[in-house]
């Protein structure tokens, strides 16, 4: 008796990308451009502060957009695309760039003494007019000098205007952590800018 002929194996399914028609692919591209690509400037600003280097920021954003495009079917329409994209960007940064660029500093948050510039300047410049004399580059430099945990929190909040909840989701930390990092990051920034302004002679500051 001859063994039964094995059933013919069906051909493997075509890869997902070629499964969709050209029209579906064009639709996908259009919706991606409309909902994701509009956040390009935000992604670039965050990438620049994370990597500290325009060429790496370019690569990081490009890679993020490509990953996002490939995973676009997983994105839940109508939810926060910016948060979704920033999460992808941050994971790409941690996995591939951080090793090459900067090293994550572990910060003893409690060791940072919150310094209130307002209290220092209560008599000399309570309206904070000295801020007007500090140029963009100096502010960006001060942000770049923050420890990474603080830098990413402050950029998401103060540059990108995201809520505590959104930031907590992107950074995968509790909301309370976002709050305390934000408090200390802003105070550290104020302190750096204050020191700069004193150094430039914009304000006298306290005689220390």
């Amino acid at each position, binding site marked *: 008796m001859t063994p039964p002929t094995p059933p013919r194996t069906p051909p493997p399914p075509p890869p997902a990308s070629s499964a969709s028609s050209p029209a579906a692919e064009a639709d996908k591209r259009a919706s991606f451009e409309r909902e994701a690509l509009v956040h390009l400037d935000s992604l670039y600003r965050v990438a620049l502060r994370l990597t500290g280097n325009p060429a790496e920021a*370019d690569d990081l954003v490009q890679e993020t957009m490509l990953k996002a495009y*490939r995973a676009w079917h997983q994105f839940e329409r109508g939810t926060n695309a910016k948060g979704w994209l920033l999460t992808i960007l941050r994971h790409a940064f941690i996995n591939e760039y951080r090793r090459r660029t900067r090293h994550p500093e572990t910060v003893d948050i409690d060791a940072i003494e919150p310094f209130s510039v*307002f209290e220092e300047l209560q008599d000399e410049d309570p309206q*904070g007019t000295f801020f007007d004399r500090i140029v963009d580059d100096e502010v960006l430099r001060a942000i770049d000098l923050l420890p990474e945990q603080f830098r990413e929190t402050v950029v998401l909040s103060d*540059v990108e205007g995201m809520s505590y909840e959104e930031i907590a989701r992107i950074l995968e930390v509790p909301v309370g952590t976002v*709050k305390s990092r*934000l408090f200390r990051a802003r105070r550290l920034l104020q302190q750096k800018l204050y020191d700069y302004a004193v150094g430039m002679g914009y304000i006298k500051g306290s005689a220390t």
Partner: protein
Amino acid sequence: MNCRECREHLYEYLDRELTPAVEQEIRQHLTDCPPCGEQFDFEKLFLGFLRARCQAQGAPPELKRRILDELLDE
């Protein structure tokens, strides 16, 4: 609400992260207490300054073109 409680909520207030009830309590305290009011104004100015100084930077136009080209190849 006293000054210490009010200042503890400083950034949450400026970031609009509080419930309307607590926000209202703070607003009331700031009206009644000029020193707290001044500090909040100073911090508000600082946050506005930070935002304004960092927003100018956008992605270079070549980057957008490169990404669009890449999507077409997908």
